[in-house]
């Protein structure tokens, strides 16, 4: 007589298998994870760890609330500690996800009668893609500052007239130069809500420009990348 033993293997529910990696440029890629049990709001972020490592980093969620996967946007920092490890992940590898966190979100009550201006540098576009995918009715403008045109990640997803690509290193964008140069010249309606995401220097400069234009601090929402 033999007794069949069924060993229960409990995988911690914070671990996710990498579903897909989309290489967007030489340095930038997106990680897609199964969405199944993860609920989030557009604009929120997660803490991401690699199994067996002892550090984690925060990433804004790149996918929309209704997408069938959870996606983050990563730019590899060649001499960094964490992103080179992320860049080596393959489908099936386990990552650890904690969250979602944060209140960098659209106030749904304002969607009907407000305009939204999203200002991003580099991978700071991530929460805005999530918002645009989640709220198709948004009256938005996306001002995206990058060095080269190939860093306009998934640009085909945005309506052309709403997407202001500012490229400082080539002339492939609608605007040649930094996004702050565009921002200084641009005019916006009084009922605009501004969302800023990216490195702190861009946020400082953009914040000053918007305040100089007379917008209240409460209309300006900031998410700094660090």
């Amino acid at each position: 007589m033999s007794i069949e033993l069924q060993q229960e293997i409990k995988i911690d529910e914070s671990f996710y298998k990498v579903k897909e990696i989309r290489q967007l440029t030489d340095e930038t890629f997106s990680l897609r994870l199964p969405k199944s049990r993860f609920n989030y709001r557009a604009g929120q972020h997660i803490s991401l760890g690699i199994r067996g490592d002892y550090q984690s980093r925060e990433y804004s969620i790149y996918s929309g609330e209704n997408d069938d996967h959870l996606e983050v946007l990563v730019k590899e920092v060649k001499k960094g500690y964490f992103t080179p490890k992320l860049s080596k992940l393959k489908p099936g590898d386990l990552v650890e996800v904690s969250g979602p966190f944060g209140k960098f979100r659209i106030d749904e009550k304002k969607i009907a009668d407000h305009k939204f201006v999203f200002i991003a540098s580099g991978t700071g576009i991530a929460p805005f893609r999530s918002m645009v995918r989640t709220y198709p009715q948004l009256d938005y403008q996306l001002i995206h500052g990058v060095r080269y045109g190939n860093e306009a990640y998934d640009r085909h997803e945005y309506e052309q007239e709403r997407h202001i690509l500012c490229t400082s290193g080539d002339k492939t964008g609608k605007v040649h130069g930094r996004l702050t140069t565009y921002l200084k010249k641009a005019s916006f309606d009084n009922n605009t809500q501004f969302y800023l995401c990216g490195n702190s220097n861009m946020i400082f400069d953009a914040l000053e420009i918007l305040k100089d234009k007379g917008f209240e601090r409460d209309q300006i929402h900031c998410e700094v990348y660090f």
Partner: protein
Amino acid sequence: MKYHLITLGCQMNLSDSERVAAVLEQMGYVRTENEEEATLLGMLACSVRQKPIDKVYNKIAQWNRAKDKRNLITFLSGCVLAADREKLLKQFDLIFQMSELAQLPDMIRNYGVVNAASLQAPKPVMPKNEHIADLWHIKPKYQSTHEAFVPIQNGCDKFCTFCAVPYTRGREVSRPSEDIIQEVRHLVIQGYKSITLLGQNVNSYGLDKNGQEITFAELLRRIGEYGQTSGEEFWVYFTSPHPQDMTREVIEVIAEYPCLAKQIHLPMQSGDEKVLIKMNRRHSMDKYRRIVADICELIPQATLFTDIIVGFTGEGESEFENTVAAFHEFNFNMAYIAMYSPRPGAASYRWQDEVSQDVKKGRLHKLSEAMKIYTRKYNESLVGKTVRLLVNGTDRKTGFSTGLTEGKITVRMDRKAPELMGKIVDVKITSAADFSMSGELVLQEETVNS
């Protein structure tokens, strides 16, 4: 069987240590302050700065040397980063998260015995608080007979760039409100006079429960209502709130109920908009200003405390001057000012610590001087007035009793009155200094008879 417990860091760790003590004493251990006579040696670590973690490494090296002479079991809990936990696992006999405290007796009994639990896979890097309720169910062994801490929430979701708490304590989890109110009631019945609701972000209380738990304002209201019916005089404080989640309703409730202490600790960290963004504080100076305006309007008698970091990365002279200006604007009654030091595990640890130590010291001194103008002015405004005072200590030099006002300002009394320890009495303020006052006991019939 004796145990020795070292607690490093904040009030949260102190509160946790009361629960560790309760568990160990239920096992039959007796506390000793002399570690040489203990057979169980434990530490509650703090990862907020490097210094306490260095102390953990030094102490465990010392304890492991002592193992040559006697049988010892060592354990570690508290705030420990994953990288440190991995290194320290080899040195401590037991390392556990506070949420696993209920299992500590089993861990001690089974120490050295190979069993299924000891063969489990490594735990996730990011601490999880799913079993934190087990910790809250443990009745603490309070270290004071009149002042107590009541944890209401654990963990942090805010990710301030200077802080590692989200990586050591995990995400925010709120304790059931019924448990909190019951513990407060129990303390009041036991005669406690000062009760502090504790959490990393107390006013985010309930938000993690998605509508299944009451808000922080409602929690305060229910405690306030209990205070109305209890017939006891006691003061309930809370620390620390985050400006992001501070509402006018919270301040309205504090104004309404006498047992909710008229003292608010509202960490500002910097008075400069850009530094706040770099710190990822997620609130503007305008938001902070509105909260203080609400406090001044609704609770004009309240004292206002804050936390400040000077010399954070990106804080130049002009940014620092904005913090100085904020001191002149808000007239804090107390500011806990820290010189920035990069904390391992925090995001800012990866940035250059660009402000020199001398400049940080200079800024700390300048802010302290600015603060003194207003602390003294406030204290002087009370001279000649009679205030309620919780007698809670003894002046080292004179041996006279000391206490705290409801606003948490220290008052030195004019006499030795050990019989009043833990009681709230009337004191007439006779003189004021920068950070304290002196006062004489107002003898009342109940005081004379006590």
